[in-house]
Protein backbone atom coordinates (compact mmCIF):
# COMPACT_ATOMS: atom_id res chain seq x y z
CA UNK A 1 0.00 0.00 0.00
CA UNK A 2 1.23 3.49 -0.88
CA UNK A 3 1.00 5.39 2.40
CA UNK A 4 1.72 8.71 0.70
CA UNK A 5 -1.47 8.28 -1.35
CA UNK A 6 -3.48 7.27 1.72
CA UNK A 7 -2.19 10.36 3.48
CA UNK A 8 -3.03 12.61 0.48
CA UNK A 9 -6.56 11.17 0.31
CA UNK A 10 -7.07 11.69 4.04
CA UNK A 11 -5.83 15.30 3.88
CA UNK A 12 -7.39 16.36 0.56
CA UNK A 13 -10.70 14.44 0.72
CA UNK A 14 -11.68 12.91 4.05
CA UNK A 15 -10.83 15.80 6.40
CA UNK A 16 -12.50 18.48 4.20
CA UNK A 17 -15.63 16.32 3.83
CA UNK A 18 -15.78 15.75 7.61
CA UNK A 19 -15.44 19.49 8.12
CA UNK A 20 -17.92 20.59 5.43
CA UNK A 21 -20.58 18.13 6.56
CA UNK A 22 -20.93 20.22 9.76
CA UNK A 23 -21.50 23.47 7.81
CA UNK A 24 -25.29 23.26 7.43
CA UNK A 25 -25.90 23.32 11.19
CA UNK A 26 -23.41 26.08 11.96
CA UNK A 27 -25.91 28.97 11.86
CA UNK A 28 -29.37 28.53 13.33
CA UNK A 29 -31.26 31.11 11.30
CA UNK A 30 -29.79 30.03 7.97
CA UNK A 31 -29.66 26.69 6.20
CA UNK A 32 -27.40 26.57 3.14
CA UNK A 33 -27.28 30.40 3.37
CA UNK A 34 -31.09 30.63 3.02
CA UNK A 35 -32.97 32.35 5.85
CA UNK A 36 -35.27 29.72 7.38
CA UNK A 37 -37.65 29.60 10.37
CA UNK A 38 -36.13 28.87 13.79
CA UNK A 39 -35.66 25.13 14.24
CA UNK A 40 -36.14 24.32 10.54
CA UNK A 41 -32.91 22.30 10.36
CA UNK A 42 -34.36 19.89 12.94
CA UNK A 43 -37.66 19.49 11.05
CA UNK A 44 -38.34 16.55 8.72
CA UNK A 45 -37.78 18.72 5.60
CA UNK A 46 -34.62 20.29 7.02
CA UNK A 47 -33.14 16.92 7.99
CA UNK A 48 -33.96 15.48 4.56
CA UNK A 49 -32.11 18.33 2.78
CA UNK A 50 -29.10 18.02 5.10
CA UNK A 51 -29.05 14.22 4.72
CA UNK A 52 -29.07 14.45 0.92
CA UNK A 53 -26.30 17.06 0.96
CA UNK A 54 -24.11 14.87 3.16
CA UNK A 55 -24.75 11.77 1.05
CA UNK A 56 -23.73 13.67 -2.12
CA UNK A 57 -20.71 15.17 -0.32
CA UNK A 58 -19.37 11.76 0.69
CA UNK A 59 -20.17 10.25 -2.70
CA UNK A 60 -18.14 12.97 -4.43
CA UNK A 61 -15.32 12.54 -1.88
CA UNK A 62 -15.29 8.78 -2.58
CA UNK A 63 -15.15 9.25 -6.36
CA UNK A 64 -12.42 11.90 -6.10
CA UNK A 65 -10.47 9.71 -3.63
CA UNK A 66 -10.58 6.85 -6.12
CA UNK A 67 -9.42 9.21 -8.89
CA UNK A 68 -6.54 10.42 -6.69
CA UNK A 69 -5.63 6.82 -5.87
CA UNK A 70 -5.26 6.14 -9.60
CA UNK A 71 -3.03 9.17 -10.03
CA UNK A 72 -5.41 12.00 -10.96
CA UNK A 73 -3.69 14.93 -9.24
CA UNK A 74 -6.54 17.26 -10.26
CA UNK A 75 -8.99 15.32 -8.03
CA UNK A 76 -8.70 17.64 -4.95
CA UNK A 77 -9.52 20.66 -7.14
CA UNK A 78 -12.54 18.88 -8.63
CA UNK A 79 -13.59 17.90 -5.09
CA UNK A 80 -13.42 21.54 -3.93
CA UNK A 81 -15.42 22.78 -6.95
CA UNK A 82 -17.97 19.99 -6.48
CA UNK A 83 -18.47 21.04 -2.84
CA UNK A 84 -19.32 24.58 -4.02
CA UNK A 85 -21.83 23.17 -6.53
CA UNK A 86 -23.36 20.86 -3.92
CA UNK A 87 -23.92 23.84 -1.61
CA UNK A 88 -25.70 25.68 -4.44
CA UNK A 89 -27.79 22.57 -5.14
CA UNK A 90 -28.85 22.28 -1.48
CA UNK A 91 -29.48 26.03 -1.48
CA UNK A 92 -31.99 25.62 -4.31
CA UNK A 93 -33.73 22.84 -2.39
CA UNK A 94 -33.95 25.01 0.73
CA UNK A 95 -35.27 28.10 -1.07
CA UNK A 96 -38.90 26.93 -1.02
CA UNK A 97 -38.75 27.08 2.80
CA UNK A 98 -37.20 30.57 2.94
CA UNK A 99 -38.69 33.26 5.17
CA UNK A 100 -38.45 37.01 4.69
CA UNK A 101 -37.24 39.55 7.18
CA UNK A 102 -34.09 40.03 9.10
CA UNK A 103 -33.25 43.49 7.82
CA UNK A 104 -33.78 45.28 11.15
CA UNK A 105 -30.61 46.53 12.83
CA UNK A 106 -30.33 48.30 16.11
CA UNK A 107 -27.58 50.27 17.81
CA UNK A 108 -27.21 51.72 21.27
CA UNK A 109 -26.28 55.41 21.35
CA UNK A 110 -23.45 54.94 23.82
CA UNK A 111 -19.82 55.92 23.81
CA UNK A 112 -16.97 55.22 26.16
CA UNK A 113 -15.14 52.10 27.15
CA UNK A 114 -17.32 49.91 24.88
CA UNK A 115 -15.47 51.42 21.92
CA UNK A 116 -12.22 49.82 23.02
CA UNK A 117 -13.68 46.74 24.76
CA UNK A 118 -13.29 44.72 21.58
CA UNK A 119 -9.52 45.02 21.50
CA UNK A 120 -8.15 41.65 22.54
CA UNK A 121 -4.57 40.43 22.78
CA UNK A 122 -5.18 37.69 20.24
CA UNK A 123 -5.64 40.29 17.49
CA UNK A 124 -1.88 40.80 17.88
CA UNK A 125 -1.03 37.15 17.09
CA UNK A 126 -0.23 37.87 13.39
CA UNK A 127 2.10 40.71 14.50
CA UNK A 128 3.89 38.20 16.74
CA UNK A 129 3.97 35.81 13.76
CA UNK A 130 5.59 38.47 11.56
CA UNK A 131 8.11 39.20 14.32
CA UNK A 132 9.04 35.50 14.52
CA UNK A 133 9.50 35.42 10.74
CA UNK A 134 11.64 38.58 10.83
CA UNK A 135 13.87 37.12 13.58
CA UNK A 136 14.23 33.86 11.63
CA UNK A 137 15.10 35.77 8.44
CA UNK A 138 17.68 37.82 10.36
CA UNK A 139 19.20 34.64 11.83
CA UNK A 140 19.34 33.01 8.40
CA UNK A 141 20.91 36.13 6.90
CA UNK A 142 23.53 36.26 9.67
CA UNK A 143 24.43 32.60 9.03
CA UNK A 144 24.15 32.63 5.24
CA UNK A 145 27.76 31.45 4.85
CA UNK A 146 26.84 28.23 6.65
CA UNK A 147 24.12 27.34 4.13
CA UNK A 148 25.36 24.55 1.83
CA UNK A 149 25.34 24.98 -1.96
CA UNK A 150 22.54 22.40 -2.18
CA UNK A 151 19.86 21.56 0.38
CA UNK A 152 16.71 19.38 0.50
CA UNK A 153 13.30 20.95 -0.19
CA UNK A 154 11.03 17.91 -0.42
CA UNK A 155 10.84 14.58 1.39
CA UNK A 156 9.37 11.19 0.64
CA UNK A 157 7.24 9.03 2.90
CA UNK A 158 10.31 7.60 4.65
CA UNK A 159 11.60 11.06 5.44
CA UNK A 160 14.44 10.86 2.94
CA UNK A 161 14.77 13.94 0.68
CA UNK A 162 13.67 13.41 -2.91
CA UNK A 163 14.07 16.96 -4.22
CA UNK A 164 16.92 19.43 -3.78
CA UNK A 165 17.51 23.08 -4.43
CA UNK A 166 20.61 25.13 -5.18
CA UNK A 167 21.46 27.97 -2.82
CA UNK A 168 19.92 31.20 -4.05
CA UNK A 169 18.05 34.21 -2.62
CA UNK A 170 14.78 32.82 -3.96
CA UNK A 171 15.29 29.26 -2.66
CA UNK A 172 16.45 30.37 0.80
CA UNK A 173 14.12 33.33 1.36
CA UNK A 174 11.19 32.56 -0.96
CA UNK A 175 9.28 30.83 1.82
CA UNK A 176 9.40 34.04 3.84
CA UNK A 177 7.34 35.80 1.19
CA UNK A 178 4.64 33.16 1.55
CA UNK A 179 4.87 33.42 5.35
CA UNK A 180 4.61 37.21 5.28
CA UNK A 181 1.64 37.06 2.88
CA UNK A 182 -0.18 34.55 5.10
CA UNK A 183 0.48 36.57 8.26
CA UNK A 184 -0.54 39.80 6.50
CA UNK A 185 -3.81 38.19 5.44
CA UNK A 186 -4.47 36.84 8.95
CA UNK A 187 -3.53 40.24 10.40
CA UNK A 188 -6.01 41.99 8.13
CA UNK A 189 -8.72 39.48 9.06
CA UNK A 190 -8.01 39.99 12.79
CA UNK A 191 -8.04 43.76 12.43
CA UNK A 192 -11.24 43.80 10.36
CA UNK A 193 -13.09 41.41 12.68
CA UNK A 194 -12.10 43.34 15.81
CA UNK A 195 -12.77 46.75 14.24
CA UNK A 196 -16.19 45.67 12.97
CA UNK A 197 -17.23 43.96 16.19
CA UNK A 198 -19.56 46.80 17.14
CA UNK A 199 -20.06 47.95 20.70
CA UNK A 200 -20.12 44.41 22.08
CA UNK A 201 -18.06 41.43 20.88
CA UNK A 202 -20.25 38.38 20.36
CA UNK A 203 -19.06 34.91 21.48
CA UNK A 204 -19.05 33.76 17.84
CA UNK A 205 -16.80 36.61 16.72
CA UNK A 206 -14.50 36.09 19.71
CA UNK A 207 -14.26 32.41 18.83
CA UNK A 208 -13.35 33.25 15.23
CA UNK A 209 -10.70 35.71 16.41
CA UNK A 210 -9.20 33.03 18.66
CA UNK A 211 -9.15 30.64 15.70
CA UNK A 212 -7.28 33.18 13.56
CA UNK A 213 -4.78 33.70 16.41
CA UNK A 214 -4.24 29.93 16.73
CA UNK A 215 -3.77 29.48 12.97
CA UNK A 216 -1.42 32.48 12.84
CA UNK A 217 0.85 31.21 15.63
CA UNK A 218 0.79 27.62 14.35
CA UNK A 219 1.65 28.68 10.78
CA UNK A 220 4.44 31.01 11.92
CA UNK A 221 5.93 28.25 14.13
CA UNK A 222 5.80 25.87 11.16
CA UNK A 223 7.48 28.52 9.00
CA UNK A 224 10.31 28.96 11.49
CA UNK A 225 11.06 25.22 11.29
CA UNK A 226 10.77 25.09 7.48
CA UNK A 227 12.66 28.33 6.86
CA UNK A 228 15.67 27.12 8.87
CA UNK A 229 15.96 23.88 6.86
CA UNK A 230 18.74 25.26 4.58
CA UNK A 231 20.93 25.52 7.70
CA UNK A 232 20.53 21.81 8.56
CA UNK A 233 23.66 20.80 6.68
CA UNK A 234 23.89 17.29 8.00
CA UNK A 235 20.21 16.52 8.01
CA UNK A 236 19.00 14.18 5.35
CA UNK A 237 15.62 13.92 6.98
CA UNK A 238 13.11 16.46 8.24
CA UNK A 239 13.60 17.70 11.79
CA UNK A 240 11.58 15.72 14.30
CA UNK A 241 9.94 12.32 13.91
CA UNK A 242 8.27 11.65 10.58
CA UNK A 243 4.87 10.79 12.11
CA UNK A 244 4.62 14.37 13.45
CA UNK A 245 4.85 15.71 9.88
CA UNK A 246 2.20 13.29 8.71
CA UNK A 247 -0.07 14.29 11.57
CA UNK A 248 0.40 18.03 10.98
CA UNK A 249 -2.78 18.50 8.87
CA UNK A 250 -4.76 16.64 11.52
CA UNK A 251 -3.22 18.85 14.22
CA UNK A 252 -4.48 21.87 12.26
CA UNK A 253 -7.88 20.38 11.55
CA UNK A 254 -8.61 18.98 15.04
CA UNK A 255 -9.17 22.42 16.65
CA UNK A 256 -11.28 23.42 13.62
CA UNK A 257 -13.51 20.36 14.06
CA UNK A 258 -13.74 21.04 17.79
CA UNK A 259 -14.74 24.66 17.05
CA UNK A 260 -17.39 23.35 14.65
CA UNK A 261 -18.95 21.24 17.38
CA UNK A 262 -18.76 24.16 19.80
CA UNK A 263 -20.25 26.62 17.31
CA UNK A 264 -23.36 24.48 16.93
CA UNK A 265 -24.03 24.82 20.65
CA UNK A 266 -23.59 28.61 20.59
CA UNK A 267 -26.61 30.83 20.77
CA UNK A 268 -26.56 33.17 17.79
CA UNK A 269 -25.83 36.36 19.62
CA UNK A 270 -24.58 37.96 16.44
CA UNK A 271 -27.43 37.55 14.01
CA UNK A 272 -26.41 39.66 11.05
CA UNK A 273 -29.35 41.27 9.38
CA UNK A 274 -28.12 41.89 5.86
CA UNK A 275 -29.89 42.32 2.58
CA UNK A 276 -30.26 38.97 0.80
CA UNK A 277 -29.43 40.57 -2.55
CA UNK A 278 -25.96 41.57 -1.25
CA UNK A 279 -24.98 37.87 -0.99
CA UNK A 280 -23.93 36.41 -4.32
CA UNK A 281 -24.53 32.66 -4.28
CA UNK A 282 -25.06 33.02 -0.54
CA UNK A 283 -21.32 33.05 0.11
CA UNK A 284 -19.83 36.18 -1.55
CA UNK A 285 -20.84 39.43 0.17
CA UNK A 286 -20.60 42.76 -1.61
CA UNK A 287 -22.38 45.83 -0.27
CA UNK A 288 -20.99 49.32 -0.79
CA UNK A 289 -23.52 50.69 1.71
CA UNK A 290 -22.11 48.62 4.57
CA UNK A 291 -19.25 50.06 6.64
CA UNK A 292 -18.12 46.63 7.83
CA UNK A 293 -15.15 44.87 6.20
CA UNK A 294 -16.06 41.40 7.46
CA UNK A 295 -19.22 39.83 8.74
CA UNK A 296 -20.21 36.31 9.77
CA UNK A 297 -20.72 33.78 7.01
CA UNK A 298 -24.24 32.58 6.48
CA UNK A 299 -22.93 29.04 6.32
CA UNK A 300 -20.06 27.36 8.07
CA UNK A 301 -17.36 28.97 10.18
CA UNK A 302 -15.57 32.25 9.88
CA UNK A 303 -16.36 35.59 8.40
CA UNK A 304 -16.94 36.74 4.84
CA UNK A 305 -15.21 39.72 3.27
CA UNK A 306 -17.39 42.61 2.22
CA UNK A 307 -16.04 43.13 -1.30
CA UNK A 308 -18.01 46.36 -1.52
CA UNK A 309 -15.65 47.91 1.06
CA UNK A 310 -12.68 49.82 -0.43
CA UNK A 311 -10.29 48.45 2.25
CA UNK A 312 -11.10 44.86 1.27
CA UNK A 313 -10.84 45.63 -2.44
CA UNK A 314 -7.27 46.85 -1.84
CA UNK A 315 -6.02 44.47 0.88
CA UNK A 316 -7.19 41.13 -0.54
CA UNK A 317 -5.71 41.53 -4.06
CA UNK A 318 -2.49 42.98 -2.52
CA UNK A 319 -1.97 39.93 -0.28
CA UNK A 320 -2.88 37.53 -3.11
CA UNK A 321 -0.35 39.31 -5.35
CA UNK A 322 2.34 38.93 -2.65
CA UNK A 323 1.48 35.24 -2.33
CA UNK A 324 1.58 34.77 -6.10
CA UNK A 325 4.93 36.56 -6.43
CA UNK A 326 6.41 34.50 -3.55
CA UNK A 327 5.31 31.19 -5.06
CA UNK A 328 6.32 32.27 -8.56
CA UNK A 329 9.67 33.48 -7.19
CA UNK A 330 10.23 30.13 -5.48
CA UNK A 331 9.90 28.30 -8.77
CA UNK A 332 12.33 30.54 -10.61
Amino acid sequence: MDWAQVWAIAVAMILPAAFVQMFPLWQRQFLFTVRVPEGFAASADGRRIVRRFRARLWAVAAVCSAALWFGAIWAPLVNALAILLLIQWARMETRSFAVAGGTLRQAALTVGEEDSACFAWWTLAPVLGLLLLALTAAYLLGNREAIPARFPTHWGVTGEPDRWSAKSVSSVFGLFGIGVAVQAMLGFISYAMAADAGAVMSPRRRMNLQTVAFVSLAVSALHVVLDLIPLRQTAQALPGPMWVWFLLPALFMAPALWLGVRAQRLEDSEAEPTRDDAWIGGIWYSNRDDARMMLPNRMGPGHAYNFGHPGVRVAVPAVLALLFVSIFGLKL
Partner: protein
Amino acid sequence: MQPAPVILIDLAAATPAYRQIVDQIRHLLVTGALRAGAALPSVRRLAVDLGVHHNTVAKAYRTLAEEGWLRSAQGKAVQVVERGVLPAPAPAEMEALASGFERRLRHLAAEMRAQGLPGEWIARQLRVLAGEVE
Protein backbone atom coordinates in the same frame (compact mmCIF):
# COMPACT_ATOMS: atom_id res chain seq x y z
CA MET B 1 -28.23 53.83 35.67
CA GLN B 2 -30.59 54.35 32.75
CA PRO B 3 -30.19 52.06 29.74
CA ALA B 4 -28.66 53.70 26.70
CA PRO B 5 -31.18 54.90 24.11
CA VAL B 6 -31.43 52.57 21.16
CA ILE B 7 -32.27 53.25 17.52
CA LEU B 8 -33.64 50.68 15.13
CA ILE B 9 -33.49 50.87 11.36
CA ASP B 10 -34.86 48.68 8.60
CA LEU B 11 -32.32 48.19 5.81
CA ALA B 12 -35.09 47.12 3.43
CA ALA B 13 -37.47 50.02 4.18
CA ALA B 14 -38.43 52.50 1.47
CA THR B 15 -37.37 55.38 3.76
CA PRO B 16 -33.62 56.05 3.34
CA ALA B 17 -31.45 54.81 6.22
CA TYR B 18 -30.12 58.32 6.97
CA ARG B 19 -33.71 59.63 7.28
CA GLN B 20 -34.58 56.79 9.68
CA ILE B 21 -31.55 57.68 11.84
CA VAL B 22 -32.42 61.40 11.80
CA ASP B 23 -36.07 60.74 12.70
CA GLN B 24 -35.23 58.46 15.60
CA ILE B 25 -32.47 60.58 17.12
CA ARG B 26 -34.66 63.67 16.74
CA HIS B 27 -37.45 61.83 18.57
CA LEU B 28 -35.04 60.99 21.40
CA LEU B 29 -33.95 64.63 21.54
CA VAL B 30 -37.46 66.06 21.54
CA THR B 31 -38.68 63.63 24.23
CA GLY B 32 -35.64 64.34 26.42
CA ALA B 33 -34.22 60.80 26.22
CA LEU B 34 -31.08 62.50 24.90
CA ARG B 35 -30.16 65.67 26.73
CA ALA B 36 -27.66 68.45 26.13
CA GLY B 37 -24.12 67.32 26.91
CA ALA B 38 -24.74 63.69 25.95
CA ALA B 39 -22.12 62.24 23.61
CA LEU B 40 -23.14 60.17 20.61
CA PRO B 41 -21.13 57.31 19.05
CA SER B 42 -18.62 58.20 16.37
CA VAL B 43 -19.71 58.08 12.74
CA ARG B 44 -17.67 54.92 12.20
CA ARG B 45 -18.95 53.13 15.31
CA LEU B 46 -22.62 53.83 14.53
CA ALA B 47 -22.15 52.89 10.86
CA VAL B 48 -20.60 49.55 11.85
CA ASP B 49 -23.29 48.84 14.45
CA LEU B 50 -26.07 49.61 11.98
CA GLY B 51 -24.39 48.01 8.97
CA VAL B 52 -24.65 51.15 6.86
CA HIS B 53 -22.14 53.34 5.01
CA HIS B 54 -20.16 55.97 6.96
CA ASN B 55 -21.64 58.65 4.72
CA THR B 56 -25.15 57.63 5.78
CA VAL B 57 -24.43 58.32 9.45
CA ALA B 58 -22.38 61.42 8.62
CA LYS B 59 -25.31 62.79 6.62
CA ALA B 60 -27.73 62.08 9.49
CA TYR B 61 -25.46 63.81 12.02
CA ARG B 62 -24.97 66.74 9.61
CA THR B 63 -28.74 67.13 9.19
CA LEU B 64 -29.25 67.18 12.97
CA ALA B 65 -26.34 69.62 13.38
CA GLU B 66 -27.97 71.95 10.83
CA GLU B 67 -31.18 71.78 12.87
CA GLY B 68 -29.14 72.89 15.88
CA TRP B 69 -29.27 69.66 17.90
CA LEU B 70 -25.70 68.42 17.59
CA ARG B 71 -22.16 69.75 17.47
CA SER B 72 -19.43 67.78 15.83
CA ALA B 73 -15.85 68.87 15.35
CA GLN B 74 -12.98 67.04 13.67
CA GLY B 75 -11.49 64.51 16.08
CA LYS B 76 -14.01 65.22 18.84
CA ALA B 77 -17.06 63.31 20.02
CA VAL B 78 -20.43 64.26 18.54
CA GLN B 79 -22.31 66.04 21.30
CA VAL B 80 -25.88 67.07 21.94
CA VAL B 81 -26.07 70.84 22.49
CA GLU B 82 -28.57 73.11 24.19
CA ARG B 83 -30.74 74.15 21.31
CA GLY B 84 -32.41 77.11 22.95
CA VAL B 85 -35.78 78.50 22.01
CA LEU B 86 -36.19 79.06 18.31
CA PRO B 87 -37.67 82.39 17.22
CA ALA B 88 -41.30 82.00 16.16
CA PRO B 89 -41.64 82.01 12.37
CA ALA B 90 -43.44 84.85 10.61
CA PRO B 91 -47.24 84.27 10.32
CA ALA B 92 -47.13 83.46 6.60
CA GLU B 93 -44.23 81.07 7.09
CA MET B 94 -45.99 79.53 10.09
CA GLU B 95 -49.11 78.92 8.00
CA ALA B 96 -47.16 77.23 5.22
CA LEU B 97 -45.23 75.12 7.74
CA ALA B 98 -48.38 74.08 9.62
CA SER B 99 -50.27 73.19 6.46
CA GLY B 100 -47.33 71.12 5.21
CA PHE B 101 -47.14 69.10 8.45
CA GLU B 102 -50.93 68.74 8.59
CA ARG B 103 -50.91 67.29 5.07
CA ARG B 104 -48.13 64.85 6.01
CA LEU B 105 -50.01 63.81 9.16
CA ARG B 106 -53.19 63.15 7.15
CA HIS B 107 -51.24 61.15 4.59
CA LEU B 108 -49.63 59.14 7.37
CA ALA B 109 -53.00 58.43 9.04
CA ALA B 110 -54.43 57.39 5.65
CA GLU B 111 -51.46 55.11 5.04
CA MET B 112 -51.90 53.51 8.47
CA ARG B 113 -55.59 52.85 7.78
CA ALA B 114 -54.78 51.54 4.30
CA GLN B 115 -52.31 49.09 5.89
CA GLY B 116 -55.16 47.79 8.07
CA LEU B 117 -54.39 49.42 11.42
CA PRO B 118 -57.64 50.03 13.37
CA GLY B 119 -58.86 53.62 13.69
CA GLU B 120 -59.01 53.24 17.48
CA TRP B 121 -55.34 52.35 17.65
CA ILE B 122 -54.40 55.32 15.44
CA ALA B 123 -56.46 57.68 17.60
CA ARG B 124 -54.82 56.31 20.77
CA GLN B 125 -51.34 56.81 19.34
CA LEU B 126 -52.20 60.37 18.33
CA ARG B 127 -53.45 61.10 21.87
CA VAL B 128 -50.21 59.71 23.33
CA LEU B 129 -48.26 61.91 20.93
CA ALA B 130 -50.38 64.93 21.83
CA GLY B 131 -49.58 64.30 25.51
CA GLU B 132 -45.84 64.13 24.73
CA VAL B 133 -45.96 67.38 22.74
CA GLU B 134 -47.88 69.28 25.39
